[in-house]
């Protein structure tokens, strides 16, 4: 039983933090907020060179063969930096291709992702606000050359920079996952402006969008388990990023409470503020336990790994929202200004709370697992 990071994992965390402190300062994040593309090509290339993009990919395809635990460590740092970009959706798409792809699909996409040449994303949410894979409504009709996809996907993250999208649809065989070129015919992309300027979503409308037979990922009709696994990784990844955002907000609050004076004293000396900070720390520490337990469980395929992923997403989603929100309260009026950095993390955490299964979805999964 060892809950501590290995020396390699600590090194990864420390070097990621140092790198992001240098290259993804709040000022840099704000520049990207105003950028139509919303993410930095230079930063992405650096991340590739650091080995972050191929972190969890097999070595045969240019990856490092590490796991969800290392990914969570990185995502925690990315969340702490408020980094805007398609790291998590790319990681998820790559993991699915690695797990179920044909030799050709793996050879086409994995090295390209690891080197930073290609970004990828996942189109999980369909017409209904329902994260269950079986709620997928998009149709995939058989054509001579392959399939034609029709329907609509909402809140597809970073679709405008992705070279490949993972799209679940209902084929005659059942629920099937397709690798789709965002530039394919009959596919229109409409950006949806999010509250978090560091989150870029698109609505993707498919009108008989043609895809080849070789676009099927895994076996036709067998996408259910693949999507469940993808959602679990997304849940843990998002939880790690939210944890980083919450930790940053706590740190900023504690620093501020030490120096901000009212009534002739630092506000941190007042129990009203001190107790709030203590409660925030409690939720951050519990979130830490939940995130890294779940990441380990996914890697180890422990018997409770499905449960642990849902626990992490449900718990950390609530905790990060509260901690980031309370950090604004601790700061008072200054925390409500655009110039102050807290809203970078507050908005990021809120955006992630609603992705890869929200709290309600994961709590229902938990009840199903433990109470059937």
């Amino acid at each position, binding site marked *: 039983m060892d809950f501590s990071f290995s020396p390699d994992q600590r090194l990864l965390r420390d070097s990621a933090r140092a790198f992001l402190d240098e290259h993804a300062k709040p000022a840099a994040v704000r520049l990207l907020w105003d950028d139509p593309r919303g993410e930095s090509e230079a930063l992405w290339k650096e991340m590739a060179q650091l080995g972050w993009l191929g972190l969890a990919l097999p070595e045969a395809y240019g990856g490092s063969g590490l796991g969800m635990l290392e990914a969570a460590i990185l995502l925690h740092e990315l969340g702490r930096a408020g980094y805007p970009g398609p790291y998590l959706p790319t990681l998820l798409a790559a993991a699915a291709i690695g797990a179920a792809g044909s030799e050709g699909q793996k050879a086409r996409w994995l090295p390209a992702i690891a080197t930073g040449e290609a970004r990828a994303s996942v189109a999980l949410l369909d017409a209904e606000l329902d994260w269950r894979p079986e709620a997928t409504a998009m149709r995939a009709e058989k054509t001579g050359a392959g399939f034609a996809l029709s329907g609509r996907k909402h809140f597809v993250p970073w679709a405008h920079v992705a070279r490949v999208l993972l799209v679940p649809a209902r084929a005659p065989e059942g629920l099937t996952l397709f690798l789709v070129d965002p530039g394919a015919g009959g596919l229109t992309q409409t950006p949806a402006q999010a509250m978090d300027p560091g989150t870029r979503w698109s609505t993707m409308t498919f009108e008989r969008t043609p895809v080849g037979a070789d676009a099927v990922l895994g076996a036709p009709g067998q996408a259910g388990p693949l999507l469940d696994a993808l959602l679990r990784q997304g849940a843990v990844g998002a939880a790690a990023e939210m944890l980083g955002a919450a930790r940053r907000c706590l740190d900023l609050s504690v620093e501020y409470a030490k120096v901000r004076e009212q009534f002739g004293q630092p506000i941190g000396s007042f*129990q009203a503020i*001190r107790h709030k900070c203590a409660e925030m720390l409690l939720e951050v520490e519990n979130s830490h336990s939940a995130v890294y337990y779940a990441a380990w469980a996914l890697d180890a395929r422990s018997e409770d790994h499905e449960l642990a992923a849902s626990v992490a997403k449900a718990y950390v989603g609530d905790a990060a929202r509260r901690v980031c929100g309370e950090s604004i309260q601790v700061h008072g009026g200054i925390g409500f200004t655009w110039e102050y950095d807290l809203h970078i993390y507050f908005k990021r955490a809120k955006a992630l709370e609603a992705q890869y299964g929200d709290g309600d979805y994961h709590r229902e999964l938990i009840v199903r697992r433990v109470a059937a």
Partner: protein
Amino acid sequence: MDLNYSPEDRAFRAEVRRWLETNVPKQELPALEDRKAWHRRLYEAGYVGMLWPKAYGGWGTTPMRQAIVQDEMARVGAPPPINGLGIGFIGPTIIVHGTDWQKQRYLKKMLTAEEIWCQLYSEPNAGSDLASLKTRAEDQGDHFLVNGQKIWTSAGPIADWGILLARTDSKVAKHRGISCLLLNMRQPGVEVRPLKQITGHALFSEVFMTNARADRRDLIGAVGQGWEIAQTTLGYERGANSLGRVTRYAAAFHQLVRATRELRRGGRPLIEDPAVRAKMGRMFAELEVQRYAALRVLSALQNGESPGAASSITKLSYTEFEKRYYETALEILGPWGQLMSSREEFEDVDTSSGEPGTWATAFLWARAGTIYSGSSEIQKNIIGERVLGLPKEVRADRLKA
């Protein structure tokens, strides 16, 4: 990071499980002598005093193994050992601060529950502000004369000895005038009155000391060193209960699941009601997080880290969780959750977290957790000051001093 139990710990767990299967008493143990006998069997099996050094009659094993024993005991609802406060806290205080004579005289009998111990700290007007305690111990040369009142004393009526904080000097700053003594509870000057709690039971007592006598050889440390000794956070039992506690919560959850299958609303079982499911999902998520946090604490102990003030986070976390947990359970169960006695037709409703009693008792008991051993507010002060490094508050008593 590897959250699997080691093969050795798994083997140990299996061994404990086998031992408990053959040794756990089949019926309840109302008589003190039977509970002492059970305690001794646990001790002889190596399951009591696990973290005490072997030199003092303990077993010198690991926090993880101790947590495993408590977890397995919780799993089968085994009666706990009885001298918890003595073994967890008072004995280690004697080991660290006591004289050789005190160690010889008290430790072994404490371990074997031949003598039961209680703690005489809190007073009616000294709760969170413990250092303002008023009980006096006057130095009479070969002994101290003790006068005053203590409250919230667990095991009071059965205790043979108590560890006492009393004021030996009222002229110095309040923290410096306190001494730590061992007090014989079996003497005419000590009167123990049971104190009935909101649960209807009396697990605590008030203790009145009128010209009670504490021998000088029972002074722990030096005169005036009592506060310092009481502040020494002794980690002997740290993490001991962590797994067992979660196992009891989980047992309660599974009883709740059974109850929500039996109780019905709108022609269907409660468990099919989305509002109930949402509440239960939140309960179980929080419960699992408590489990992960417990493993994290045990791992840190195993790696030789001392949690120090961070153990306030653990205490705050599980006691506040426990309140929310039973509040939600009673919301779900409605009036069925408030029954104080068993009903045949809904046996599963009428149960608690492994302790005798009902959901209602567990719900009531949860109010105690956030008060005893340093209230949630005190824990948050400790976390704020010692973990987060926030400035100390300006306090009236500090301004005077």
